[in-house]
């Protein structure tokens, strides 16, 4: 039976019991009240019976009419009261009937006696009257005593009935209470056996299950709510078992995964180690490669410079020497030969021009002679002349790197960036700024307003080697500790910043001041007047012997000019100048040990009156400016005409001013 059903039954029983007890109480109270009233009537009958006995005796003794009347009145009262008694029980009915019968007899005896007394008493003598009275009294006394006794019995009966009724009522209540208590006890026993025991079993079962024994099955003894709960527990346990099995599988799988992850982690660590090793190796190789690239760059530059040197030191010098010889020769031959000689000179001049251009392209001599800023200026002009790109320059020679390799690397990088502008930007102008930024870093910014770059694509392409050479530039910058920053958007132009490492930005403080302007005109300042001499004492300084011989031959044919010394480098020139004190020095710029500019600066500082004419294979205003800044009085190219050279010598010797606009 379900606990709910038990509860409902208990409540119904309790309700029924309450109804029965209440009804019993109401009914019993009514019955008790009615019995109490009847008991009062019975008490009255007791008094009436006694009164009847008293009154009948009184009448017997005195035979007066009032006694007779009282007896009849009492008899009526008695009869009336007796008629009020019900017949609630057979006993009561029997007694009442008995009393009615006795009353009837008493009445009969009384009337008989009364009739006798009223009719014949006067005839009796005393003894007869006394006997009659005694008999009559006995007869009436028997009846009246019977009435009294029956009335008392009736009273007692009613009292007993009332008591029994109360007892029965109490018994009924007690019985119901006992029954209900018994039911509750039985119910409790059932509940204990069926519910509490089941709950206990369920609790024990849950503890067993809770301890981990998922094979334990809770026995459901009854088909009630606890039985359903037990089934639910068993089902849950079965599910839990399945889940636990799945969990075990999952844990195994997780363990395997952990192992796999551990193995993977080891592999990854190993891989990372290998990667690190490889990375380190690659970095090492990258460094090596960078070094190699750097070396390659330097080697390239060296090779460029070597080739340029070869061109300059050999071919151009030879050509220059040849030109000088032919010029000398043409002066000594006839017109026809002279014309041929001039044709040859034209070819030599053209060769020199081509050679110079090739030399400048291989390695601008200004980079070595004038520093990065001078080289960049040359590059700007060169890009305009060669590729039609207008380059706006904003450079400061004070910011030039000290290290030559840095200057070479930056120059090449700027040149490549400008080439990219020419090739990809779609514009005809660019800007190069060399400056010091807010962080104190020195940077060279190459910018344009062209079509811009897709940086991601550029760098991806850069990794594949097709990124405008940016990768190479970046690598080279990183190699020297600097970096390359690129800012660009499609259609918004591009800006490439070459940022030098701070320790590498030590500037060329001691470098000569920046050349102001790039004019070709040179003004030779006044110098102390030399002593008046017959010949102009000229000292030749050139590391190329053929050039010296050519110059010597060219100049030596002139009687007013005397070659007082021929030297092959700057240091010798300085020493010889101190000894010889020539009037004019023809100073080649490119020389070993000490170049012509340094030697010029030294000699000019010591002997300002010595006129120094710088000679070079290059036609460059910056170089010209550098020469003048070093103290040169004139600057001539070796490919120039001999007349120009001789005029310059004579002009310097005559202390005049020479407006040489050398090309």
């Amino acid at each position, binding site marked *: 039976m379900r606990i709910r059903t038990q509860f409902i039954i208990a409540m119904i029983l309790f309700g029924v019991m309450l109804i029965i007890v209440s009804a019993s109480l109401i009914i019993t109270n009514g019955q008790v009240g009615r019995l109490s009233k009847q008991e009062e009537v019975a008490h009255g009958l007791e008094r009436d019976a006694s009164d009847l006995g008293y009154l009948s005796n009184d009448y017997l003794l005195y035979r007066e009419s009032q006694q007779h009347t009282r007896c009849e009145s009492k008899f009526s009262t008695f009869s009336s009261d007796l008629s009020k008694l019900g017949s609630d029980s057979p006993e009561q009915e*029997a007694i009442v009937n008995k009393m009615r019968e006795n009353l009837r*007899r008493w009445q009969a005896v009384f009337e008989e006696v009364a009739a006798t007394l009223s009719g014949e008493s006067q005839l009796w003598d005393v003894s007869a009257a006394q006997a009659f009275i005694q008999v009559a009294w006995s*007869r009436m006394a*028997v009846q009246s005593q019977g009435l*009294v006794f029956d009335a008392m019995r009736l009273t007692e009966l009613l009292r007993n009935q009332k008591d029994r009724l109360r007892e029965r009522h109490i018994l009924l209540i007690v019985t119901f209470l006992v029954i209900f208590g018994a039911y509750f006890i039985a119910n409790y026993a059932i509940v204990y056996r069926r519910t509490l025991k089941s709950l206990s079993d369920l609790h024990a079962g849950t503890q067993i299950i809770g301890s981990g024994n998922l094979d334990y099955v809770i026995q459901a003894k009854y088909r009630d709510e606890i039985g359903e709960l037990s089934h639910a527990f068993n089902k849950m346990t079965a599910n839990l078992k399945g889940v636990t099995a799945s969990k075990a599988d999952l844990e195994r799988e997780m363990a395997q995964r952990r192992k796999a992850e551990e193995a993977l982690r080891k592999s990854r660590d190993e891989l990372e180690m290998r990667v690190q090793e490889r990375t380190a190796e690659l970095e090492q190789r990258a460094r090596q490669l960078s070094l190699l690239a750097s070396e390659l760059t330097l080697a390239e530059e060296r090779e460029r410079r070597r080739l340029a040197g070869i061109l300059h030191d050999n071919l151009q010098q030879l050509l220059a020497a040849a030109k000088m010889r032919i010029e000398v020769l043409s002066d000594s031959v006839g017109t026809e030969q002279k014309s041929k000689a001039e044709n040859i000179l034209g070819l030599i001049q053209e060769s020199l021009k081509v050679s110079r251009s090739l030399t400048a392209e291989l390695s601008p001599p200004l980079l070595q002679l004038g520093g990065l800023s001078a080289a960049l200026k040359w590059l700007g002009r060169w890009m305009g002349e060669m590729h039609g790109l207008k380059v706006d320059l904003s450079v400061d020679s004070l910011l030039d790197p000290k290290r030559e390799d840095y200057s070479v690397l930056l120059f090449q990088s700027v040149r490549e960036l400008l080439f990219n502008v020419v090739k990809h930007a779609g514009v005809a102008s660019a800007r190069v700024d060399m400056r010091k930024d807010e962080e104190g870093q020195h940077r060279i910014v190459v910018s344009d307003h062209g079509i811009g770059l897709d940086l991601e694509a550029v760098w991806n392409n850069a990794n594949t080697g097709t990124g405008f050479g940016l990768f190479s530039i970046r690598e080279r910058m990183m190699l020297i500790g600097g970096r390359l920053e690129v800012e660009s958007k499609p259609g918004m132009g591009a800006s490439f910043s070459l940022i030098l490492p701070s320790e590498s930005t030590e500037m060329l403080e001691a470098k000569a001041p920046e050349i102001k302007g790039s004019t070709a005109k040179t003004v030779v300042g006044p110098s102390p007047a030399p002593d008046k001499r017959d010949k102009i004492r000229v000292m030749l300084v050139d590391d190329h012997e053929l050039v010296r011989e050519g110059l010597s031959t060219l100049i030596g044919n002139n009687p007013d000019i005397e070659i007082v010394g021929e030297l092959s480098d700057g240091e010798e020139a300085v020493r010889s100048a101190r000894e010889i004190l020539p009037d004019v020095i023809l100073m080649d710029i490119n020389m070993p040990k000490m170049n012509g500019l340094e030697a010029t600066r030294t000699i000019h500082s010591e002997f300002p009156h010595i006129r120094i004419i710088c000679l070079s294979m290059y036609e460059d205003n910056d170089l010209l400016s550098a020469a003048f800044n070093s103290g040169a009085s004139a600057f001539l190219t070796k490919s120039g005409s001999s007349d120009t050279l001789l005029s310059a010598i004579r002009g310097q010797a005559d202390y005049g001013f020479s407006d040489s606009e050398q090309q």
Partner: protein
Amino acid sequence: MSPKSTKQFIILPSIMAGVLAVAFGSLVCRKSMEGIPFGAIPSGSAALVYIAQDEGFFSANSIRVKVKEYPTGVGTTGALLKGAVDIAWAAEFPLVHRAFANEKISIIAALSRFSDQYLFARKDRGIRNISDLKAKKIGIPRNTIVEFYLARFLELNGISIEDVSLLNVLPPQSMDAITSGSIDGVVTWEPYSSRIKTQLAGEVTAWPVQNFQPGYGVIIARNDWISEHPERIRRFLKSMVQAEDYLIRHPEASKNMVKKRVNYDDAFMEIFWSENQFSLSLDQSLILAMEDEARWMIRNKLTNEKQVPDFLNYIYEDGLKAVKPESVNIIR
């Protein structure tokens, strides 16, 4: 010993033990059922005794009552005094009579009140009125209450008992006596009175002779027996109480029981039932009645005693008080 003999060895003693146990138990039961020989007249006045017997109230109270019938209360009291019975049913008058003889007996209880005694007089003997009874031969059971009632009846009607001739006619012979004409009239009680009423309806004149005074059907025992067997009396009276309760609650069934015992027909049974009251009691009216009867005996010189006996000495109250105290109301 073979298995068969072993089995017999076990079974036979068991059977014997069982038989002995049953026999002993029967003896014990028989001994515990106390026997009471009860003397009664063949009348419905002892209805409670018959009901108690038929309903097993005696057995329930561990007594076994054997009813011995006698024609009159004089006979039952005589048997009582002789020890033939332990308890006798009688009207109160035999005890009054025995009290003058100083017999050691006592009324245990009154079982009923009866008013069933009639005087039948043959009309052919010229008896139409009570006054016609003078010098007539009237048969009565002598020394019974009938004699008292008849004397009182005659006295109240102006006739002395000495004016009539009394012949001893026991109730069972009353019909024959009056029919045969050996007497002019007869006083008898039920069921004989109803038979005469029925069979001699036109031939006799009937008068109730009890003068509205009920007779008491009492049960009497010897004092020595009472003192020896108070518990037995208590059980007997308890049986009577149960019978009274049964009679009150089952009047029809009670009538049927009594009818079968005394061979009454239905019509007579109703008459008898209305003329009798069946109720256990010991009340003052009984004392008054006996004293009245005793005075009558003295006055009529039916006894040599001049003093009315103290009938309180002839009442044993304790038995009835033990089982139905509310029924005892004796003034002492």
